[in-house]
């Protein structure tokens, strides 16, 4: 039906008109700046000890941050609809990279973890690209089939005609076909990331995909079923950690039993909560962390939030949490007010991903969640992932230009 009445195609140029959303922009700049400062503070002792240079990590991160600002300027000015053309290629590249990463030898010391690909001096995680690929492709596909997803229209796929045209009891609805399709893509992606020995990445992508499907308008009942299934799964995993990959088991065990510490698996978490405790309400002051003196291992990475808590205290850390919350709020608002479904899903998917990752990271560092390798967006060290992140922020800003927001 929809095909017969083709919508007049909207014309899109390469650049986009309209002012960008200043609050979101300010939040992003604040997070990037704070992230750099805290990353420098957290990494200084560690990099001095291992590289004889307090600025070792800071300098590298700074280069990517500056590059990122360029990317932000460009991407926020580019019409986000150009990404529609890239959706399928990026998904394919993502799959290719996820397969490739399993084939290249992992770096020394991480023999069991196929998470990184090195291209010369740059190292990146294909799972980071996979996240964006899922958001983009889902947004693109859901935008195209939004009406079908939100109606009971029957599928017009050729294989379904046998069911739909007869008088049989079983009718294949279009939204069912789409759901299957999304689940398939999600399943393949998650399976590949899981093969990397990357449980947290798998969960994150899975949650992201499900959220996109939720936003697209699939029936609530599926999500109730999914939520129940998730709770059951969590209970099963906590009760029987042996079904997990070997490296993840002790993390679950030591999370359940805080005194269980074989081979020092709780070391990292303990150091983190000691740091948070040391910070108290107002913190020991910027730069004064003692736990970053090689106690918290790689304080510039996944556990940077503990150093933030120690130096800036509960108050400072709460400020950063609020910044993330504002980012999520403003991002969703941009999505809600976006001109079209594509932009809407794109913006919401991106900020949801960032928000979820930040929330999970803070949960891990404060020992509410089991220790998983999740980094804190904007704060954790990692040039390519920062670049990717800022690019995504540019995308959201691009969406904001045509959104019907009250411009401040």
């Amino acid at each position: 039906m929809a095909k017969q009445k083709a919508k007049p195609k909207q014309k899109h140029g390469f650049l986009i008109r309209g002012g960008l959303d200043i609050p979101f922009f300010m939040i992003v700049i604040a997070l990037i700046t704070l992230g750099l400062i805290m990353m420098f503070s957290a990494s200084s002792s560690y990099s001095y000890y291992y590289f004889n240079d307090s600025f070792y990590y800071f300098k590298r991160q700074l280069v990517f941050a500056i590059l990122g600002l360029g990317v932000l300027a460009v991407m926020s000015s580019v019409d986000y609809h150009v990404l529609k053309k890239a959706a399928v290629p990026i998904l394919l590249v993502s799959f290719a990279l996820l397969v490739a990463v399993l084939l290249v030898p992992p770096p020394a010391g991480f023999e069991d973890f196929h998470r990184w690909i090195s291209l010369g001096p740059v190292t990146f995680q294909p799972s980071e690209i996979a996240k964006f690929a899922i958001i983009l492709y889902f947004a693109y596909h859901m935008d195209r089939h939004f009406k079908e997803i939100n109606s009971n229209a029957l599928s017009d796929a050729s294989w379904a005609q046998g069911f739909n045209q007869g008088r049989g009891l079983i009718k294949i609805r279009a939204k069912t076909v789409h759901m299957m399709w999304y689940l398939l893509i999600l399943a393949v992606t998650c399976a590949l990331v899981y093969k990397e020995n990357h449980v947290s990445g798998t969960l994150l992508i899975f949650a992201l995909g499900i959220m996109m499907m939720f936003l697209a308008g699939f029936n609530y009942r599926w999500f109730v079923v999914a939520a129940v299934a998730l709770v059951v799964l969590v209970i099963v995993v906590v009760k029987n950690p042996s079904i997990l990959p070997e490296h993840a088991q002790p993390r679950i065990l030591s999370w359940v039993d805080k005194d269980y510490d074989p081979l020092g698996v709780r070391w990292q978490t303990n150091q983190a909560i000691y740091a948070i405790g040391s910070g108290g309400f107002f913190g020991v002051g910027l730069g004064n962390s003692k736990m970053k003196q090689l106690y918290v291992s790689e304080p510039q990475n996944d556990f940077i939030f503990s150093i933030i808590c120690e130096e800036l205290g509960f108050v400072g850390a709460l400020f950063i949490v609020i910044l993330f919350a504002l980012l999520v709020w403003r991002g969703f608002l941009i999505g809600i007010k976006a001109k079209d479904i594509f932009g809407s899903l794109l913006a919401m998917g991106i900020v949801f991903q960032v928000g979820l990752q930040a929330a999970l990271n803070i949960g891990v560092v404060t020992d509410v969640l089991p220790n998983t390798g999740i980094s804190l967006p904007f704060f954790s060290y990692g040039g390519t992932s920062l670049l990717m992140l800022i690019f995504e922020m540019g995308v959201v800003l691009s969406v904001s230009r045509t959104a019907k927001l009250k411009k401040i």
Partner: protein
Amino acid sequence: MARKTDRKLQDRAYIAMILTLVLGFGIGVFGMINTGLIHGEENRRKAESEQLSDTVVAARRGTIYDSNMNILAQSTDAWKIYVNPKEVPDEETAKKAASSLSSILDVDYDEVLTDCLNKKRSYIVLKSKVDFNTKQLIEKLRTENKGYNRFIGIEDDVTRFYPYDNFASTVIGFTGSSDKGMSGLESAYNTKLTGLSGRNITAQNAKQREISSDFATYYAAQEGTSLQLTIDNAIQYYLDSALSNAVETQNATYGYGIVMDVKTGAILAMSSQPDYDLNDPYKISKADVKEELDQIANDDERAKATTSALFAQWRNRTITDTYEPGSVFKCITAAAGIEEGVVTPDEMFVCGGSYKVKDITYHCSNRRGHGSEDFTTSLMNSCNPIYIQVAQRLGSQKFSNYFEAFGLGETTGVDLAAEAAPKPGVTYYTADRMGPVELASSSFGQSFQVTPIQVCTAINAIANDGKLVQPYIVARELDSEGNVVSVTKPTVKRQVVSKLTADTVTQMMVEVVRNGTAKNATVTGYKVAGKTGTSEKLTTATEDYIGSFCGFAPADDPEISVIIIIDDPKSGSFTGGKTAAPVAAEVIGNTLRYLNIEPEYGDDEKTQQDVKTPSVVGLSAAAAQESLSASGYTVRVIGDGEKVKAQYPEAGKLIPQNGVIVLYTKSAKASETVEVPNLTGLTVSQARSTARAAGLNVEIVGTSNDFTGASYTQSISKGTKVALGSTVTVAYMTTTTEMEIEDTGNAD
């Protein structure tokens, strides 16, 4: 429709947003509150406990000085070298570092390598108490090799140094690995010497490196108390060398002795030979013992035997070992008898050679008997039957009272560790258990066990007008700046006998030295009072004897009490008169001259009289030489200056008549030295002329009127370099047969 779907999307977006914010960030904020605020204190404490390094700052141990403030024991800075194997990058580096370390520190290469590769630990001490030069070499190694300073560490340490090695070693004692006193004074005064250690609290990173922090706190250590001993280095040297000489020449197992200040009980010298090197206490000092130990094939047995040999060499036998004092004790019996009025020095006795108590016959040393003799003579003859009779007159109760009054039933209370405590009924008979037989044997010093210091203190009471004093060895305690913290006040325990009795017994003891069994303790110019003793060791199967002498001098106004014990001499003579008395003579002579006690000469001693050297410093060389030669001195002039700038011995020192005086006309210091020639095996005149030829003075000790024999020992051994004009003591022994007959060992 579009509006409816838009609204639906909007609703879902809000749901998703709220879910993310509330659930997601709720978890995070909950975690922050839980770990940072609710359990914040606990986590902060845990953090601090791993960040703060609380190291003990060792207090410097107090110094031990002799009475002249010569340092006998001192703690000096040292260093500890350790490795942190966790920071050793690879095996290659470990091997390279281990070979450098083992050669610098003189430790086994394989051990160092094993330590360096012990990845489980982060702190292994390779060597402690390393000196400054070695520490510098390690520092150089660390700077020259990149990365070494990550795993090779240097820490402060202290080491105990004993400048005089063996000197008074059994008295001073030594410290163990943790700077804790292991024996002697180091152990007895450990708490005071140790002081209070301080603390250094610093923040450190996870690799045990210090980082700056507000927590850094330093509590300074409080240095230990220093001790000034009553030990006089010169007197200690006389005693040490006389005893070690005696042990060697008499082939004895041990020789030990004490020199005590009569009036105060201050111990001027205390020695137990053979001794050991305080700087190397775990080395077996006796060569023959070492050889014996090396021949034990079984490792365990050898280790056990080595341990007991070490404990044996560390013992201060003057306070830890007990023995039967034998005839020396007759002085106590005599004092008790005279004090109680049951006997007088002039009372006549008859010695028939033996005396029967109940069914037991006690023999006198002279089995034929001494015949008719007065009480004084019975002491000179050391005649057992007479003392049994005196004890019988006293009765068990009174005898025991005096035994205990003289301090033989208690420890002397000397401030040294491990003084053997007497046990009533075990080490000696108490009155209620003392039957006639026990009384008889006790009367002449048998059937009970006492320590040398008990005997010396008891005899000292006779010297000290009947007053028993408590011996002590620490004269003063000083703080780290040298301020006097406390001074030991001499303690008089009690008046044991009257001054009159004490004087009477002293006169009897003078006779014992002049013409009795202690004749070999004679010192020219000084009146010595003393008594010898010989007892058979009951603990051994073979016939082992202990020869002893205890006495004091000068008899008219006693300054020093001396006890000398020669344990198991194997060179033929074993009686106290032959083994211990000559050693005592040497020690007494040297000590009294050192203390500048004016000698007094009897008529027969005039020729051997010491004279005070006149002062000739400042006179012209020729005039000095002329005047000294006229007075009979032998003069040596060093240098061709016109005036005498220095003389040796200095003015006022006692030297033998016609002695050698060296005059220095160029330098103002006595600088010439000479090797001491052999002076043993010579007659008196031979010894004198040999010494004079070498430019030395000789002091003759031993039997005063019999110089026909050959000298048996000299105070400074052959080949030693001494100042030109020094005095060497040469000892002579009586060779004529006397009343003493060595057949029973029960008495001299």
